[in-house]
């Protein structure tokens, strides 16, 4: 048996198949993508979060209108660090603010008025995205019909997303819904002004803390034209011509492989998976793209330039971080994206976990880790705490909700969702990542965790825990 039941889970043994210790002799994957055990203190979010927060939210010049009671709109207002060079999508929060009366009589009229009024106040918007929350699905508003009607009146696309929070088991279905909606309603509705033989889309890249601003120029320097980024720093106008790319590359392979596959099936445009984190993986991605476009020499040139510039910095941080052990807990893909980059810094990942990983995510994790590695599907707060205490990694990469729990245990932490001081992608971003790990691990603050500092203490003495 290589599944594990942690002590905190003894009352909920159904968690056991979700927690696996890697044994290459009899490899198994954690059970995944099923309903959460009610009350288990899950870290998961909802389908609305995956659709509005992750995939739809970064599109910068649309009115992001949340149809529902106020909370869901508020909580997604500017929170995820999906940066852009304009501010409409992060600075403004639009909501139909449904009340009890609307729940009884329906919110359709309010939605129509809200779309029109939003556009009147923000005529620079290129489209309106309408996201349905739980209550809208339950009361049965005809959002499709209303959005069509509104589109007729205001003359810009009004796109409804049926992403009620209670659908599915996690954020993951929300990604899928956003992909399918944008593919069905947007992709292919406009032709690009011009095409070149080197047109490519970067899919599943949300410009977290500026990642896309690092990634995109790497390909452009190779001579590739980036037609669209789906959806980091994207204009609405970037999405309709996606069907004219020659190649798609997919960075977030959980949230966005859907649209790459749909484009492949309908328009015969191939896609390749990439990991644009770390020196080796980024170089490999550039080489793969170079091979496809027969731009191999250009790819090598960019790689050489980047390595000359940034490898010495990585070597510096490796000296400071060699031998450290970490946990990585992410939505899904970054849990495996970062295992090899950590090794480039001399760091071994001893535990990974994902909030909403599917089988393919866990296959990717298991193909990268050493025997004895612990892998947890949909971990809850108690499991995270138990493993942090038990294995005491040198640092933990997770999200804001786990940050302060980790600190209280005296363990250094990196926010892998929105980053500390990113970007973290590409060669240059990896230097930032390494620097932030160095700051986390080597901060003097950890010396004080173990109690009183007696007079004459050697401040350079290594903390026994770190």
């Amino acid at each position, binding site marked *: 048996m290589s599944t594990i039941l942690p002590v905190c889970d003894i009352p909920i043994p159904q968690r056991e198949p979700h927690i696996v210790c890697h044994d290459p002799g009899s490899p198994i994957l954690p059970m995944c993508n099923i309903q959460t055990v009610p009350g288990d203190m899950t870290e998961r979010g909802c389908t609305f979060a995956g659709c509005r927060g992750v995939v739809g939210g970064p599109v910068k010049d649309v009115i992001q209108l949340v149809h529902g*009671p106020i909370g869901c709109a*508020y909580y997604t207002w500017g929170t995820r660090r999906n940066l852009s060079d304009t501010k409409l999508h992060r600075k403004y929060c639009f909501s139909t603010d449904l009340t009890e009366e609307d729940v009884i009589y329906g919110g359709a009229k309010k939605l129509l008025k809200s779309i029109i009024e939003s556009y009147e106040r923000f005529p620079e918007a290129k489209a309106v995205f309408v996201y349905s929350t739980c209550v809208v699905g339950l009361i049965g508003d005809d959002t499709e019909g209303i959005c069509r009607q509104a589109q007729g009146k205001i003359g810009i696309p009004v796109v409804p997303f049926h992403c009620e*929070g209670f659908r599915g088991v996690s954020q993951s279905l929300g990604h899928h819904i956003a992909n399918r909606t944008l593919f069905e309603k947007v992709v292919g509705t406009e032709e690009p002004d011009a095409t070149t033989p080197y047109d490519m889309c970067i899919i599943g890249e949300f410009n977290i803390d500026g990642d896309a601003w690092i990634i995109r120029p790497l390909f452009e320097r190779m001579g590739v034209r980036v037609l669209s980024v789906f959806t980091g720093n994207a204009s609405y106008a970037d999405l309709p011509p996606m069907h004219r790319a020659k190649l798609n590359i997919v960075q977030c392979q959980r949230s966005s492989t859907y649209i790459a596959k749909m484009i492949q099936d309908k328009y015969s445009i191939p896609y390749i998976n990439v990991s644009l984190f770390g020196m080796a993986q980024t170089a490999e991605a550039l080489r793969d793209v170079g091979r496809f476009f027969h731009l191999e020499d250009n790819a090598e040139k960019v790689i050489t330039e980047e390595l000359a510039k940034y490898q010495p910095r990585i070597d510096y941080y490796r000296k400071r971080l060699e031998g450290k052990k970490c946990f990585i807990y992410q939505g899904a893909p970054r849990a495996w994206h970062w295992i090899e980059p950590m090794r480039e810094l001399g760091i071994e990942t001893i535990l990974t976990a994902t909030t909403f990983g599917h089988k393919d995510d866990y296959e990717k994790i298991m193909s990268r880790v050493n025997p004895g590695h612990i892998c947890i599907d949909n971990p809850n707060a108690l499991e995270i705490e138990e493993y942090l205490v038990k294995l005491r990694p040198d640092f933990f990469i997770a999200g804001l909700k786990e940050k302060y729990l980790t600190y209280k245990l*005296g363990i250094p932490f990196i926010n892998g969702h929105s980053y500390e001081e990113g970007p973290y992608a590409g060669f240059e971003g990896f230097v930032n990542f390494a620097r932030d790990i160095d700051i986390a691990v080597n901060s003097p603050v950890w010396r004080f965790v173990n109690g009183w500092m007696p007079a004459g203490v050697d401040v350079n003495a290594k903390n026994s825990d770190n």
Partner: protein
Amino acid sequence: MQRTVIINPPKMCQPMGAILAYMGVHGCVPVVHGSQGCSTYPRYNIARHFRESAEVAVSSLAEDAAVYGGAKNLAEAIKNVKARLDPEAIGICTTCMSETIGDDVRQIVKKATLPDDTTKVIPASTPSYVGTHLTGYDNAMKALVETLAVKGEPNNKINIITGIINPGDIREIKHMLRLLGIESIFLSDISDTLDTPMMRGGHKPMLPQGGTRISDIADSANSSGTVAICKTAGSAAVYLQNKFNVPAILGPAPVGVANCDRFVENVTKLMDKPITREIENERGRLIDSIVDVHHYMFGRRVAIFGDPGIVSGIVRFCAEVGMAPTVAMTATKHRDFAPDIKAVNSEYGTDMQILEGTDLYEFHEVVKSQGAELIIGNSKGKDIADDENIPLVRVGFPVYDRVGVYRYPILGYRGSIYLLDLMTNAILGHKYDPNKLHQ
């Protein structure tokens, strides 16, 4: 407001407030009966404001619950939280989802608990489509006293219902009561649970230390009076008054001279205690600090937004300092808000616009038309302040783009001094001629 769509709402939904109320109870685990986002989003909001983790469970409602109801999920959630954490209490809050499908949370809780359970389960109905985060706080607090308060011997204490204020504010109010020799029960108390120390060796208790004990909430029926700091959090006070004859006083939030005086007067009268020299001295220091800065602040136009009780208090304080508040805005409606602001207008000759139940988009329009040299509000005021090139003094919830705001009080005499210093320094630090600051 002639508009249906809400743009930039400085308000959240009921579960957010209910979770904060429950987090002030010792050993209490909040359980949200709804979709998973309904716990994750408030947790995120708590984490970024307090820089603390907030452990909140959720019943993880999904499609089957939409059809068959969510009773099974909630019962299982209660069972699992009990089995794994053995908490002293579980605080349930409902959501738009569970309310729309018609789950009767009281019945579910009744069935899921036994009379001799050591874990108290508190059912609060907090539909997200009614009211705001403040309504949720109020409903959860009322559910806590309804479920737990028991008549016994008079305890000679005062109940303080905090509302959504910061740990720094709670500590300041405790300090004032200490100076007055008054014993208290806080309903509830996040000052330790959401501002926790790092323990030696990183030994973290499973649930945070601190918070109001269940036994103290039970004893709240026997207090000499209840003061609700925020008027929006008064339902539990009214319940205790009606059911147990505990006199209730709702507000005003003790910001500024008059409101702090009212607070001191209210608690000393209820408890039949004299006003002490120490409190007189603190009051004196506040007056002294206003005297010191009144030349800088006189006539300064200030725009204020936030939760109604706190905004009313800050508005009055600004007027006391000689400033000219131009707009007072709250997203949560409250019957006393407009009368409170109008009273300031008439007492101080100010000409404030009152925005109630509206949003920051409209607030911004008024700031533009009325002009302001200072904005006071939470982090959501940043873009307006930047656009108008005026400073923002951050108060309220949430403040996530500055550190430490939750630690410091703006309530009480000392808190008011701190707020005044923040306001004055914001003015002096922004386009004020430094040549005039050498003497």
